[in-house]
């Protein structure tokens, strides 16, 4: 890969760089939000949650400390998938559902890039479900941001695989019949090493989750609750309305006791059969109240967390559910190649073409 610039340029800075970027060169200069804004006019509907996510993402990218040209944003199809056009890096707006597959080929051949996948609930969980789960289990070094608005926006309002059952939409005038996916549960079931959830309206939280994802080497899955004011307004209202949000939103912080409610009066403890239940802090044995541990190797706890939002956002944890390091596919692929070269030497093309059984004529 002689023509492709490689990681060594910035080797001295490796220690400072986020975990997913140790093979990416360091930026020569400090970049700003402006450097990541393209000249394209942003064309989402007024009030769309995508604006806030884009702004947070553009403001966060300079933090990575890597050159603009080493960032690649790849999306599928849908409202959210227009995002790459607005970020002044390399980008590809691909086809419906396939962004994780395309990003896999890129990340596997270019460890010197920071690769971000932008997708939505229809794109990632319906038409592209297969690629999503396999990218996660394979643990390729890509960051997947799933904008979940629980509706099909670009095709004008059909129900999506995360819409609540019974949803009345253009394609389901009598109510949708299917049970929705819980994206966090799905990602955990797919062996994801990094799983987080955040919301479009909480810039600070969103940025902290992006930061944690960038620091994780391997596939990172971030579900972002995103409001679609046109076709599914207030889908996440219980989580943002002042009267309900304190009781509903459970903020996860690694190493911290889990507390929620206006006065932090609630905690979580294990119930029977491995599920979690809400407990009043006062009057509960403190030993049984959970301290959040995102690094627990077994995903059962994270899975139990992901089930708390049923029904109707009863209690909805946001933050990093799981952050467990394991070998990445792309690193392992590179290692096999260096290994083969170390053991067998660099490939000899003439010897390969001739093979072991030749004969001479003339």
């Amino acid at each position: 890969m002689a023509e492709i610039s490689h990681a060594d340029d910035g080797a001295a800075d490796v220690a400072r760089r986020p975990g997913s970027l140790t093979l990416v060169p360091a930026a020569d200069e400090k970049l700003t939000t402006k450097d990541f804004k393209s000249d394209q006019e942003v064309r989402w509907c007024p009030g769309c949650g995508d604006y806030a996510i884009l702004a947070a993402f553009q403001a966060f990218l300079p933090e990575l400390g890597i050159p603009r040209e080493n960032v690649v944003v790849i999306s599928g199809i849908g409202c959210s998938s227009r995002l790459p056009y607005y970020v002044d890096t390399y980008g590809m707006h691909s086809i419906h559902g396939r962004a994780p597959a395309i990003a896999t080929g890129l990340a596997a051949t270019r460890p010197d890039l920071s690769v971000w996948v932008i997708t939505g609930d229809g794109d990632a969980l319906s038409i592209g479900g297969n690629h999503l789960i396999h990218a996660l289990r394979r643990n390729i070094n890509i960051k997947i941001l799933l904008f979940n608005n629980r509706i099909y926006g670009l095709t004008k309002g059909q129900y999506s695989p995360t819409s609540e059952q019974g949803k009345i939409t253009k394609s389901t005038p009598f109510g949708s019949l299917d049970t929705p996916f819980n994206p966090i549960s799905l990602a955990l079931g797919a062996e994801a090493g990094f799983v987080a959830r955040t919301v479009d309206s909480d810039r600070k939280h969103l940025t902290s989750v992006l930061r944690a994802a960038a620091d994780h080497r391997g596939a990172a899955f971030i579900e972002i609750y995103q409001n679609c004011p046109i076709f599914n307004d207030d889908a996440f209202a219980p989580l943002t309305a002042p009267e309900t949000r304190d009781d509903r939103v459970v903020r996860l912080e690694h190493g911290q006791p889990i507390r929620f409610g206006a006065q932090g009066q609630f905690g979580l403890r294990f119930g029977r059969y491995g599920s979690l239940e809400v407990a009043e802090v006062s009057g509960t044995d403190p030993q049984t109240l959970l301290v959040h541990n995102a690094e627990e190797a077994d995903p059962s706890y994270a899975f139990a967390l992901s089930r708390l939002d049923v029904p109707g956002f009863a209690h909805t944890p946001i933050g990093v559910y799981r952050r467990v390091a394991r070998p990445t596919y792309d690193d392992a692929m590179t290692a096999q190649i260096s290994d083969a070269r170390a053991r067998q030497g660099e490939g000899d093309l003439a010897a390969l073409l001739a093979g072991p059984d030749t004969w001479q004529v003339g």
Partner: protein
Amino acid sequence: MTKQVQPLDRVIIRFAGDSGDGMQLAGDRFTQETATFGNDLSTLPNFPAEIRAPAGTLPGVSSFQLHFADHDILTPGDAPDVLVAMNPAALAANLPDLPRGADIIANTDEFSKRSLSRIGYSSNPLEDGSLSAYRVHAVAITSMTVKALEEFDITRKDAERAKNMFALGLLSWLYSRPTDGTVKFLESKFAAKPEIMKANIAAFQAGWNYGETTEEFSVQYEVKPASLKPGTYRNITGNTALAYGLVAAARRSGLPLFLGSYPITPASDILHELSKLKRFGVRTFQAEDEISGVGAALGAAFGGALGVTTTSGPGMALKAETIGLAASVELPLVVCDIQRAGPSTGMPTKTEQADLLMALFGRNGESPVAVLAPATPADCFDTAMEAVRIAVKYRTPVIILSDGYLANGSEPWCVPEVAQLPRLRDEFSFASPNDWRGPDGQPNFQPFLRDPQTLARPWAIPGTPGLEHRIGGIEKASGAGTISYDPANHDSMVRLRQAKIDGISADIGPLEVDDPTGDAAVLVLGWGSTFGSIGAAVRRIRLGGGSVAQAHLRYLSPLPANLGDVLRSYRKVLVPEINLGQLALLLRGRYLVDVISYNRVRGLPFRASELASVIQEVIKNG
């Protein structure tokens, strides 16, 4: 006993047995012995799609045909001179192909009443005189193998399993093949199981010795080496040649090779072959599905790698959308379709040429790509290199249409010198920031501003400062590459994409016609794997004093610039295809020439004799 040695100029043998009988291995070894001896050869493996179809049944028959000669040959041959039938089913399945007078070597041990009745024989054909038109050699292959291996510490089952080596030994004696290679092969194949290794070698030698001593075989044959052009030769299958062509292209272009692929018959061997070649820096990715395989290859290409995907018909159908994206974003991508009999699952292990129109047109919108087809197993190497050349030079998907016959068939290949291979690194370069600065010195990259000669757009890979840009499947403004819904721009982009592919015709040379007498009225035009059959048929016509011209298309898109003139310069044009006339449809549409289509879709290559009579008929009808 000394036996008479009879010289022959060519022989066709067929090994046939149950799919568990090891006939493919016996055939492979005989092929390798024959190659080493210096004959020209051509092979046709033919096996069921089921891994182990029920033993002793007609659907379970697996065969391997080999044609070898003291002169250059073009096909695996029409009709076997010798059939090795390891059981009654193998005899019944292959008998219709045997000419009168052919030798049949039958394994009598398997001709029990039960196995005979299983396939509908009421009496034993080896004994009831029904095979009197053939020379039948009844040989107790299984029991002689078991007897020869008595002294080895192996199970009876393992001993019986070595019967293919006995058969190979006997055939090796019959045709005076060198045996060292097979002994060496068995030594390395069974290195971990020394007793099995010795037993297999002993079975092989027992077969040879049986031939030498028994009176059943009174004549030994000899086929002298062929006089091929000087060089170093090896035997190679189409899939291996294709894999090596890709590796060679990666080396000669300086691009790292990335293969995204999902297992599918008959393409998987390319994935297997390339996955061994990590020391060449080859990255193979076994994807979760066909779509991911091509998607990952396209992603790799975006990053500046040589992105390749391999598949067969059903997988091609699934990849269509991504190939369309590659055509739209104009990135290099090599798609290898190893065609098999369709539609749907069809007959996975049988050959066909029916994906041509899908390769050319099977995507939404006007979505032109380059399409190439190799003519012979060894030609898969050159075709792969040429596909890569076109892909990187024109930044386009290129589809290679090989097929099951080329994939598994083999022939001697004059191994090229690496230094003589095309220097693909001269055909392209990545976009550099210095080429894209405005008068103010600031970057002004235009990802869809085309090279005026090739109409290729710049290949600007991530990591290049100043060339940050976004591409996608939405229509792009010519030049700037930004989203554009402008009607005139779309019309222009549709035409530009087509013009780019059409323009490749100036870069591929004219179609050459083989018309030695110059007075032929009939041209036979083929494409892909029918080259050998058509060539052999044409040879027969000429040997019989007839005049006929032959031309063969390697480029299906774009077609050679002179094709229309060639077609119009013959009174009749015959187009044999293993489909229902797909190239013929194209030629009639493009050139308004009333070509004659000849089609058979049996899952097998054409027989030369069959094509010869078709050609004869066309000539006669003037």
